[in-house]
């Protein structure tokens, strides 16, 4: 009984904060838009009894999902989101791995400080930090002023409101999520493994590829998922740093919901997004599970 209670707490949490909202969203996605409050039909009215319930389910349809396929805006937005998420994950990995590697190789007394520096940005609001990037990247921003001052460029670069700015913002924001799991994998690694590899005929570089990289594989996978999954649905960064050319599903969702006030279509977009994300989330979970088994 006590065991059951212990398990029940997190499950109740999940049911209340994930499953019930998801069912509501799913229901809205099957409804029709209406000029009402709330702006969709039909409403569930339990007082009507069994007949009311029957007519309620009869009114639900997949019309909104069909609509998503007719307008190419949506699948373009999905694909574009996936592409941006993929590229920014790769860039974050390329930037994050050397940082994590350097941290793990640093003298042990320095590691806590370095670790704190990676986490430090979380102490200020994410929104403010993205606004700060607007100040840096704009035409009269710090970056352009600096480049003009050094004479590298003669006219300011247009970075803000382009995909470049979005990539910069995403890589900057999600870098800690990449660094931390890789660092924890590398830090656990026994240095004598590299010595053993060298002893057995590896050069430094091949020892890195044959020992360090495979041993940090789980950290790399975890980091990539931790970046990729939230970036797909990212909304703040593309809407603040991106321009009209930046197409991301998070932004589309927001516009459907708040500008068009088309809750059913917005809900359908959200449900599809969730279905897309289920695959990487399952893969991520499996990786974590495997890692736990290997360690334990």
């Amino acid at each position: 009984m006590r065991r059951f209670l212990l398990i029940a707490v997190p499950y109740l949490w999940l049911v209340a904060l994930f499953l019930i909202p998801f069912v509501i969203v799913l229901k809205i996605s099957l409804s029709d838009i209406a000029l009402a409050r709330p702006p969709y039909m039909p409403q569930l009215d339990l007082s009507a009894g069994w007949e009311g319930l029957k007519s309620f389910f009869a009114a639900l349809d997949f019309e909104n999902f069909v609509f998503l396929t007719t307008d190419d805006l949506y699948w373009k937005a999905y694909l574009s989101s996936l592409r941006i998420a993929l590229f920014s994950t790769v860039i974050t990995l390329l930037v994050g791995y050397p940082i994590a590697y350097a941290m793990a190789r640093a003298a042990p007394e320095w590691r806590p400080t370095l670790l704190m520096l990676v986490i430090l940005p979380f102490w200020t609001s994410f929104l403010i930090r993205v606004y700060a990037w607007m100040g840096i990247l704009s035409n009269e921003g710090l970056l352009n002023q600096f480049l003009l001052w050094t004479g590298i460029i003669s006219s300011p670069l247009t970075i803000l409101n382009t995909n470049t700015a979005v990539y910069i913002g995403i890589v900057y924001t999600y870098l800690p999520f990449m660094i931390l799991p890789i660092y924890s994998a590398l830090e656990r690694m026994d240095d004598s493994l590299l010595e053993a590899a060298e002893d057995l005929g590896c050069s430094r570089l091949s020892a890195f590829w044959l020992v360090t990289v495979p041993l940090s594989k789980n950290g790399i996978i975890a980091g990539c998922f931790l970046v990729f999954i939230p970036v797909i649905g990212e909304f703040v960064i593309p809407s603040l740093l991106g321009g009209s050319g930046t197409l991301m599903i998070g932004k589309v969702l927001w516009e459907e919901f708040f500008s068009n006030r088309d809750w059913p279509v917005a809900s359908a977009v959200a449900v599809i997004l969730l279905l897309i994300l289920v695959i990487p989330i399952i893969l991520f979970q499996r990786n974590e599970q495997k890692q736990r088994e290997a360690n334990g």
Partner: protein
Amino acid sequence: MPKDFTVAQTVFAPWDDPNEKPLIQFKNVTKRFGEFIAIDDLTQDIYSKEFFALLGPSGCGKTTMMRILAGFETPTEGQILISGQDMSHVPPNKRAVNMMFQSYALFPHLSVWDNIAFGLKREGKDKDTIAARVEEMLRLTRLDRFAKRKPHQISGGQRQRVALARSLAKAPKLLLLDEPLGALDKKLRQDTQFELMDIQEKTGTTFVIVTHDQEEAMTVASRVAVMDEGKIVQVATPDEIYEAPNSIYVADFIGDVNLIEGRAEARMSPATPRDQIEPTTTPDPEGAPPPPAKPDAPQPNAYGEWLQNTLLFPFLGKRAPNPKELPAPSETKPTPALQSPVKTGGIALHWADGHPPIVVANGDPQLAGAAVTLALRPEKLNIAKNKPDTPNALPGTVIDIGYLGNLSTYHVQLDNGPMVKVQVTNVRRIARRDITWEDAVWVSFSETSGVVLKG
């Protein structure tokens, strides 16, 4: 059996052969880490097919020596030659040297098979050669059944064997073993020691082993180097290290030892009769008047005396002043010195006031007049309740008895002297042991069982 059957065994001792070329030469090697001197001007040769043990407490420089051989450290000064070739600028991956790490350093992401094949693959050998060699190594280390397992799926002893197989796979000229058996429990360690010796013999590889376990070093090694503070204090075969240590440090580090300090004096030569060099306080039992009855022998009291003299006298006769005494119980250990005459020469050691000097026939007479220490192994001492007829017999009291099953160690406080340990093989069951706590005993040893060391 005809005598021809016994083939003369050539003793393996390349270090005594001036024509033999050493495989490894340390030439005035010094290694500093900042202020700390890990290796201090060390010169040492190691020969092919040797099983060379570096023994010492932690921080003595033994691991640094090994890491220099492997190429992970470069000497601050001096040279290392392997097969006559200077190794100073040869990186670890270009050396015909392999190392078995203390932590084994098995690659956790690779199977046992792939771990062993790792070095061979780096050499770019073809698949069949690699497979054949790996199979050979698996058989040698009896790991055939575990080839597909990952390191975390096998036991500590198996992991140790994988590490050994991996380091042997490339058939190195020199194999370095860094505390190879440290992580194994005692029984497994002992078995593995013999396995290591076996494999060393089979493969003909030169082994250099680093260990802080002196028993392990003595068991496996052809020569043992005892190190202290970056220097090699003594290099010798295990028996020589044990029986003839060259310093108090070595004597004390290897095994148990009793150290008796004193002042040396040259013994008169030629041969002096035992009685002259050893004035005994108690007269010899033979010929001399019988000693007074022992205080613990039963003595009649006044009433008994009267009873005897008045009542029993007619029947039993006069009471003998000394009851018949049984001969002293025989020694558990025969002392050959009893039969043979005491060896001449050597020194006499004055070790405590009021005691005759200890006779050390193998002591260096040139040490006469110097302060010296006599190192005596506990198993070379005898313990007895009655004074034995040996050149050296020191009185004392049993303070403690350590029972180890096969052996017992007696801690004896010598009268007016230091505490010594005496080790006796328990040939009798413990219930029949005749010496117990607080007993007055004699600790005896022959004139050649100790080693006189300076200082």
